Structures are given as C-alpha cells and as structure tokens.
C-alpha cells in the first residue's frame, strides 16, 4: 500500500471540496455499470439467526455478476444506521440499500430516503405504507408463523414428557404469533401438550437465553424452540442437556447434530434476487412484498435424526396442505390461556390477516403470561 504516502493535506482538502465519492475512487474502483447493494445488520453476520439469514443471501448475491455487495454488521438502531447508509451511498456508491433490522425504518431510513432521492431503500419489516412513505423506500417481509406451526408438529412427535419450551424475546405481536403457532401445531397432534414460554425481554441476551434453556430442561421440557435474534446458545444448551430443538431464522443443525428436529428458516435470497433483477433491468423496484412458506419466503430445515418417520410424514402432509395456499393456523373456536374466546367458531384467519398483526394473547395450552 503506497496510498498512505499520498494522503497529504492537499488530498484531504481536495477530498473535502470534491466530496467523499471522488476520494473513495482510488481505493477500489467500482465498475461504473455495477450495481452496488448495501446490507446492514443489527447483530453479527454469523449469529446463526436473524442476521445470518440475511447474510447468507448476501453471500450468494456476491457471486452474481454485475452486483457488488457491501455489508456492515452490528449497526445500532440509532443515528449510527443513518450514518452507515449515508457512508455506503457516498463512499461506496451504493444505490440499493437493505437495512434489515426492524428499528431502522423510522426515523433513520426515512430521513436518509428524503436526503438521497436517487437511492432505493427496501426495509425488512412490513412497515411501508403507500402514500405515507416515499416511493424510493419500501418493505419486504415474510410470514414465518407457518414454519413454527410445522416446528410444533415435529416437536409433538418427539416429546415424551408432553412439555415443550419456547424462549421468546419480547411479547410483541410478531413473536406471539410464533409462540401461538408453535403451540397450536403441537396441539394439533396431541391436545394434552403444554408449551411453556419464557420472555427474556431482549432481542439478544445469550446469558438469559442459556438460563431459560436450562430452567426449561430442569422442568422436564424435552423440546425447545425460540424467537430471539441469535438462537445459538439455546440450540447448544438443548444439545448439551440431551433434549430436542427446533430451529428458527436459519439452519442450526450444526449446533445440535443429535437433537435438531427441523427449523423455520427465512429464504431471503428469493426476495433479494427479485429486487436486484428489477434494479438491473432498470425497472421500478417493487415497494411492498411479503409472503410465507407457499410463496418461497420461508423454508424448513432438513429433518434431523431425532424426528421419527411418523413425525416426518405428518409434517410433510401439513406442509403440502400449506403449499396449496389459504391455510389457517388461527381458526375458531380458539381460546386464550385465560379462557377468553379470541377467535369465535366459524372464523379463520389466514397468515396475512390484519387481525393477527395486533395479536396480544397466548393461546390455550401455553403456560406463561404477556405482562
């Protein structure tokens, strides 16, 4: 590297004057026609979870011709992310940005979108509303509840104690849908199964997650799943305690080679490929995309050795049913765990139903409380 010697007062000043974009050129000249895409993650790229699910897709995209990927991990949901977006646009020449964490949207991404009107922003989280948010922004999101429903079915076939455990971050609708779907999946096989939920209060707090896994195992729970950003420590603890685990976000089979049954995974590459194809073709990039298992937005991990033939067959059958479309996990009559009717008889909600987006209950068969 000889560039350091060239970094004189003059080059710095010219950098100030000419703008950072020109100053960045000598380091890594990006081909003019390359599409530069920025990925921003809230946690580490190798968390075996939420962030890894996105980073795995980014890694595939890196091999795509004509696309340059820039990535940044562990970016806080503060002005830090605004600066990261700005830096990607200014210093790397990024024209399409994927800020992947829910909290990046408002106000950070919206602020940057207003400032850089030529750049396109697509946010993971389903918050974009037409006429309310700028047209160079958008949302993509997946419905992963069905995946947790299938996890529940698999868990029901593996459990001997009839006690399942769910370690969850926060009692917000997205998480509650997963907890309830898992419990309903298990109870569709055997209504006597109980699912204990523990809320850790944080998206990523490995110490509490390990404590929760151990205390569930101590209580006789023999299948665990979760909704936290990085399921790593939960899967490892389950394996060490000799119990089964269902994955979430990404494939965690490596962490629990004996106990891993299956898992609900994001399949973001499908979404990113679509966006990037549109961008490269010069077409407008869609503003709002969402889908579930039947749309290819999510997928199930390959079965682990802990799941018997009957379990595999049951999951396969229900999955085939879901793939046809229109499947409902939440259908009446359905009571919450306090005995209130939450879905009346004759009513059924498909995964896209708006009623589910404000879910604030735990269904019958879940042991635990929201507040």
């Amino acid at each position, binding site marked *: 590297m000889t560039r350091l010697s060239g*970094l004189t007062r003059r080059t710095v000043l010219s950098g100030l004057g000419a703008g950072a974009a020109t*100053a960045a050129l000598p380091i*890594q000249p990006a081909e003019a026609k390359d599409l530069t895409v920025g990925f921003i993650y809230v946690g580490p790229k190798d968390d075996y979870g939420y962030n890894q699910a996105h980073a795995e897709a980014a890694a595939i995209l890196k091999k795509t011709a004509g696309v340059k990927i820039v990535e940044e991990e562990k970016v806080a949901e503060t002005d830090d992310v605004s600066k990261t977006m700005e*830096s990607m646009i200014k210093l*790397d020449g990024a024209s399409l940005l994927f800020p992947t964490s*829910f909290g990046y949207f408002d106000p950070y991404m919206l602020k940057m979108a207003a400032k850089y009107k030529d750049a396109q922003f697509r946010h993971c989280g389903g918050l974009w509303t037409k006429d309310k948010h700028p047209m160079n922004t958008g949302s993509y999101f997946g419905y992963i509840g069905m995946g947790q429903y299938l996890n529940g079915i698999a868990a029901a076939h593996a459990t001997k104690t009839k006690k399942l455990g769910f370690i969850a971050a926060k009692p917000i609708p997205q998480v509650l849908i997963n907890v309830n779907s898992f419990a309903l999946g298990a109870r569709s096989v055997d209504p006597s199964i109980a699912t204990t939920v523990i809320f850790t209060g944080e998206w990523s707090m490995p110490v509490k997650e390990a404590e929760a896994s151990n205390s569930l195992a101590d209580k006789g729970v023999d299948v665990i799943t979760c909704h936290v950003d990085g399921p790593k420590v939960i899967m490892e603890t389950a394996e060490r305690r000799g119990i089964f685990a269902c994955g979430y976000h990404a494939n965690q089979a490596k962490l629990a080679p004996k106990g891993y049954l299956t898992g609900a995974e994001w399949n973001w590459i499908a979404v990113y490929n679509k966006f990037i194809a549109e961008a490269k073709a010069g077409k407008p990039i869609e503003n709002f995309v969402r889908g579930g298992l039947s749309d290819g937005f999510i997928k199930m991990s390959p079965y682990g050795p802990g799941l018997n033939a009957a379990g595999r067959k049951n999951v396969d059958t229900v999955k085939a049913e879901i793939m046809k479309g229109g499947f409902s996990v939440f259908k009446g009559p359905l009571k919450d765990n306090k005995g209130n009717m939450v879905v009346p008889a004759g009513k059924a909600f498909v995964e896209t139903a708006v009623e589910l987006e404000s879910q604030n209950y735990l269904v019958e068969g879940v042991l635990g409380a929201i507040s």
Partner: protein
Amino acid sequence: MADAATMSTPIAVTADTDRYWPLRRMAEALAAPLLALAASAVLFSLLLLGLGQSPLEFLELVWRGAFGSWFSLQNTLQRAAPLLLTALCVALPGQLGLVVIGGEAAVVLGGLAATVVALPFVNTSPAIVLPVMALAGMAMGGLWIGITGALRARLGVNETIASLVMAYIGLALFNHLVEGVFRDPASLNKPSTFGIGEDNMLGTVPGLDVHPGTPVGILACILCWVLIYRTSLGFAGRVTGGNPRAAQLQGLPVGRLMILACVLGGACAGLAGTIEVAAQHGRANASLAAGYGYTGILIAFLARFNPLAIMPMAVLLGGLGAAGGLLQRRMGLPDATMQVLQGLIFVSILASETFYGRIAWFQPRGAGK
C-alpha cells in the same frame, strides 16, 4: 487512582523553585497517552499482519472513515456527542475516587423521563418542551446515579457494584415502563412511548450535519473542568479523591461531596439520553440503550478523569466508531476487530499509568535535590 500523581505533588515548593515544571507536567500528561496509543497501534498492527491484512491500509481507512472528509468528520463528531456526557458521568465521581460504571441506566431513564414529562406540553412550543425535557432528563439521571452515591456515602456500599446492579435494574425498569404504562399502543412491534412531535425536535447545528449534542457536550466538559480545577468545591472534591479520611479530618463534608459528584455525573448522562431523544429518536424506546454509558467508562479512564482530556478521547472513540463500518466493508474485517483495538488502547493507557514519575526530565527540579 488517576490523580495519585498530581495529588501527591508539593505544589507550594515547586512554584518557587521550578517555574517550568507545570509545563513539563503537562507534557508528561500528553506523552503518556500518546505513547500508549502508539504502543496499541503497534500491537494491533502485529495482529493485522498475523491475519494477513495490511496495517497501512487499516490506518488509511480509519483516517478516511473518521476524519478524512467533511462527511466523516461530522460523523465522528456526532458519534462523540453522547460519549462526552456519559464520560463525565464516570469522571466526576472518579475525581472523588469513586468508580461508577452504571451510566447506561442514567442515559435510558433520563431519556425516558425527558420524553414522558414533555408529553403534556407537546402542543405548546419547543421553547417550553426542550427546557422541560432537559430538566427532567437531568433530574432523573442525577437521581439514579445519586442513589448509588448515597448508598456509598451513607451505608458504605461499594459504588462500583451498586452502580452496575442499579444499571441492570434501571434497564429492566426502562423496558417495563416503555412496554407497559408509557407505551404508545400503535407501536406494535417496536414498543415505544408516544413521540414528542417533529416540531419539538432539535435540528442540526447551522451549517453542519451535527446535532447540538456535540456543542452541549463540549460545553459540559469545559464547565466540569472549571468546577473541578478552578473552584473550592472542586478542590474539596479532589482532596476527597486523594484521601477521604484526611479530607474528613479537615472538616470537608465528604459524604455530601460524593453524593453531589454522583448527582452531577448522573445529570450529564441523563442529558445525553435527553439529547438522543430530542435530536434523533423523537420518542423513548430500546434504541436508547446503545451502549453509550459503557463506552463512557472507557473514555473517562482514557482521559484519566480530566474533563478536558475527555474531548479528544471521545472524538477518538467516536472516530473509531465512524470508521468501523468502512473497515468492515473494505477489508472484510468483522466488527469485533474494532473491539479488539479498543481493548488494546484501554490496556495500553492503563499500563501507561506506571510511566508517570519515572522519567526525571518531567519531574520538578531544584527542591529536594
């Protein structure tokens, strides 16, 4: 601990006999951290070489990402803003020999209090909302760290442990309140309080893309320096830091001084949280717990609890934060690389404490020879 060297110096003797010693003392105080920074740079370069990366490329990217362009420099200054104030939360009690590490809770609770207290006034005017927020945030932060100070002063509870445990309690309380009584029901998947409204938010400093947190933080550092080094109250505090028993024998209100230092430090951290809300988030939510309170500990120790030295150190750490992203993108280094570098700097600076008093040239001459 940081003041052991300066406190033990016989000021009266040297003033007569060695007029240049104060200058050389200042040079010593500059040389030690600079040497430490150089040492950490060398250690870190060895690590990079071990990884097959170029240290020169690393340095150039740090320069480019942190200071090398107008955008980078403003990025650095803005990141330094909350750090200036959270470092004061450690430095002020630190001057009295207290190691308070729970500033994070004062930041989040200060931000929450500022938001909640301002909510009834959101339809009046920013001229009312912003001062109310600042007062509420500082009061809350001061109260929270003040409890730690009172526990120490009145009951002899170790302030380091107490502040750490209080930080856990504070963060849990914050989550409980934001997800419970103060929650805006419309904030479904990211629980938040109601917003203070776009009109009441702080803009940027005119001509800059930096919010007023940076000038406020600088002003706070200067005021704290004056308080510590140019007032009798500050002198009493430093005497307490040198030897609390001796201070007590002199009739100084040691307990009250300790509580006051904690309250003032907490108020600074509470103000940091307030500014984060007023300038960035517009509402209180989990984004407030971004670790500023913890980075502040690092900065205060690097600055040896001197408020003026906090300024360059906060800019240094802010700059490392600003450059971190570019390093990830250009060199493919994981985020943890920056933590390793920060750790090396921290250890080097702590080790450089032993440098003080070792080199004769920096020491007072004439008297005692």
